[in-house]
């Protein structure tokens, strides 16, 4: 039998009573510390619901006095988020391919914009502006210039940070091909992708922008897509050009791209400024 019989041992009643007292005190201290820590970490919106009124402010002030302030909470949680991003970056491998599917396996794809899709008028005279190139020049490519690149197709899964995902059949050019044709300046480590024509939920112009690390841009399955399901991209899905990077969360797969700039410093990222992670590697 694996389990050994319990062997009673003789102990000094005084000693174990003392140990018991110490353990119970530590337990009580642990409960208090956990409660304080939980209160500290809870989002303000949740706290407002749990404890409406002045009691919440008093508790927050008390917590801030021992260093558990809202500012410190943000710093702490940001560090946890950065740690998770570092884990994602360590897991990334340039040579690893993501799972591909048959064209018959595609599923409905939600056209999530951060706001509304661009107006059809804004596509007139559309060009893709490239900056931060080795040539030192600013390049402007129109649709016909992009059409000269070899066309790639793939059926991959797009995973949204919200938790839904969809399998879609994409067509377009490999980001790596664009990088080869217009190499970034030496020292560049990031691509800042921007849509100048996208709109906020109320329909007002609001640029959308994401940061993409160059290893991801060079990945063989990272496309600058112009087609969905064998047809030109509809406005709702990012016409005329969108990023398809299946190694990144959907929110990095920027639609209606107008600008790409290569740079040494990590660019700002729309959703990162709103509390989401930054690297977003899947």
């Amino acid at each position, binding site marked *: 039998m*694996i389990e050994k019989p319990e062997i009673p041992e003789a102990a000094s009643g005084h000693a174990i009573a003392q140990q018991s007292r110490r353990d119970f005190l530590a337990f009580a201290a642990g409960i208090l510390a956990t409660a304080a820590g939980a209160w500290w970490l*809870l989002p303000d919106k949740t706290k407002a619901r749990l404890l409406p009124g002045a009691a919440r402010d008093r508790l927050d002030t008390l917590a801030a006095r021992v260093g558990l302030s809202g500012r410190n909470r943000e710093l702490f949680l940001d560090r946890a988020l950065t740690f998770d991003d570092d884990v*994602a970056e360590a897991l990334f491998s340039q040579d*690893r391919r993501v799972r591909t599917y048959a064209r018959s396996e595609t599923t409905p794809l939600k056209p999530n914009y951060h706001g509304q899709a661009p107006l059809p008028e804004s596509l007139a005279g559309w060009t893709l502006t490239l900056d931060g190139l080795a040539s030192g020049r600013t390049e402007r490519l129109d649709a016909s210039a992009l059409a000269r690149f070899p066309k790639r197709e793939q059926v991959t899964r797009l995973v949204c*940070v*919200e*938790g839904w995902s969809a399998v879609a059949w994409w067509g377009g050019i490999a980001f790596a091909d664009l990088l080869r044709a217009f190499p970034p300046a030496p020292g560049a480590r990031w691509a800042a992708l921007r849509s100048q024509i996208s709109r906020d939920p109320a329909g007002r112009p609001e640029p959308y922008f994401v940061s993409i690390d160059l290893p991801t841009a060079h990945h063989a399955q990272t496309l600058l897509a112009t087609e969905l399901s064998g047809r030109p991209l509809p406005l709702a899905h990012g016409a005329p050009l969108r990023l398809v990077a299946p190694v990144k969360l959907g929110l990095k797969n920027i639609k209606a791209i107008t600008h790409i700039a290569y740079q040494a410093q990590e660019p700002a990222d729309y959703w990162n400024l*709103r509390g989401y992670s930054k690297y977003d590697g*899947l």
Partner: protein
Amino acid sequence: MAPKSPRPDRTVLIVRKHHWLVRWTHWLNVPLLFGLIATGLAIYWAAPVFKHAPDPVTGSRDYLADLGFAIARLTGDPSGGRWVYEHFGLGTGQLAGALRLHWLLAYFFMLNGVLYAIGLMKGGGWRALVPRPSDGAEALRMIRYYLGVIPHAISRKPWPHPVVRSKYNALQRGAYFTMPLVGALVVLSGWAMHKPSQLGWLERLFVSYDGARIVHFACMLVLGSFVVPHVILVVADGFDTFRSMLTGWSTRLKSDDREGA
């Protein structure tokens, strides 16, 4: 039998029950799981996996919101479809905050699990958790015993606890053996969702992305529902059992022949 509290002036017989790492990680699981479920539900709310066609009356598209509407209607609560998300979760509309907390707690939960496993090894506690051939028959005996407790208490007839010579009875062993496995499964399905591209093999293990989501949700239900009978049985079993998870020792010797929790 009432638990014996050691008198300070004499020698008492004790048995060592739980390694200190097992005890610490056991208690840490409580706030960690609580936080993981609360943040997990806030994440789940953003895109439920258990969905149906929109309800013509409530407009609800997911079963947790349906449950919320049902409870809110019974209790007259104004939160409606948000009831479950607000009472068991952080609430609705805070995906970014919930994700940050969920990752933080998830890393601590994984670390906690590793420390728990080390504690089980170092203290030899794992030996008491290993299933054995007699478990089926003993489990049936225990179920029969538990079903009879209340009727016999009402009719004031004696209803002796089955004799258990091992540290745990078969039902406890089954539960305590399963929980770490469910814990491992919840971590694996979590990684399958978190890194489906780099850990594609893991995603395939759960068939698909949604497969991992469903397993993750089911594990949450199992872990959450384990707590209820666990706490009831510890309370029923008495102070000594609770204390042994704090101090590590028990004054209840096997010759006393009672088991629970």
